[in-house]
């Protein structure tokens, strides 16, 4: 079970009214390497991973939901005061027709979120390598969004999220080391 803390993991500030950035940010909301995919991937893999690393998947999967919430806040702030005309100019006309101003789990190109974004092979090394790759892909996605964004306040939040991907990647790499460990097993090669 979870306890909810009614605050963001890191404060979200948006400096400029630029709804176009919302269209880019939605990639991290409902895209293949986004925070939703990450949270669902790790929390689902928990059950069939060696028990030394279950807690890691649990903690990181939970944190991904906190990131999802930050992205949602950014998208909401960027779109809530936009007129339908401004949304259309930002490339969000089709989104507005389908969803109004509500958020939706879709990628930057408007493709709906799908469970096939999430891999779960049931082989611990395979799944952890998948997780490392997922963190690096999310890190790269943040870099591309930062390259496209000229809002320093927004980029501050995105830099925080990118740094978290780096830390998560490090921890998954350590998880691989833990489960392949031979020490204390009295094995002679």
């Amino acid at each position, binding site marked *: 079970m979870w306890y909810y803390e009614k605050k963001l993991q890191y404060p979200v500030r948006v400096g400029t009214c630029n709804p176009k950035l919302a269209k880019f940010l939605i990639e991290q909301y409902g895209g293949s390497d986004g925070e939703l995919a990450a949270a669902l991937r790790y929390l689902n893999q928990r059950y069939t991973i060696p028990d030394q690393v279950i807690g890691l998947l649990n903690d990181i999967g939970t944190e991904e939901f906190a990131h999802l919430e930050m992205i949602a806040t950014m998208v909401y702030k960027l779109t809530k005061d936009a007129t339908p005309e401004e949304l259309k100019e930002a490339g969000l006309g089709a989104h507005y027709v389908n969803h109004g101003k509500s958020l939706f789990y879709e990628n930057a190109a408007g493709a709906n979120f799908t469970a096939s974004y999430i891999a779960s092979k049931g082989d611990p090394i395979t799944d952890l390598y998948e997780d490392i790759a997922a963190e690096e892909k999310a890190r790269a996605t943040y*870099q591309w969004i930062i*390259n496209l964004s000229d809002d320093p306040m927004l980029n501050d939040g995105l*830099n925080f999220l990118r*740094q*978290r991907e*780096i830390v998560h*990647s*490090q921890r998954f790499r350590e998880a691989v080391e833990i489960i392949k460990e031979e020490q204390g097993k009295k094995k002679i090669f």
Partner: protein
Amino acid sequence: MPTYRKWFQPYVSPFDPCPPLGPVPYETPAQLYLGFQRPGMPQFSPFQSLSHGTLWPALYTPYTDPYRGKRRPA
């Protein structure tokens, strides 16, 4: 101390339709080099940790847009 950004120069053809953009950057952040984190490594202060997104200076790899300030000559 490793560098966290590398560059490579793709082949430039005399028949390329667009002018070359120059060397292409790619990021190689700290987690690629750290290995299994050893105990007792130095930490940031709590406030710095919050703003950096990590407790550990050894994992802190800030990012800046490598194309910033790069403009094609008009």
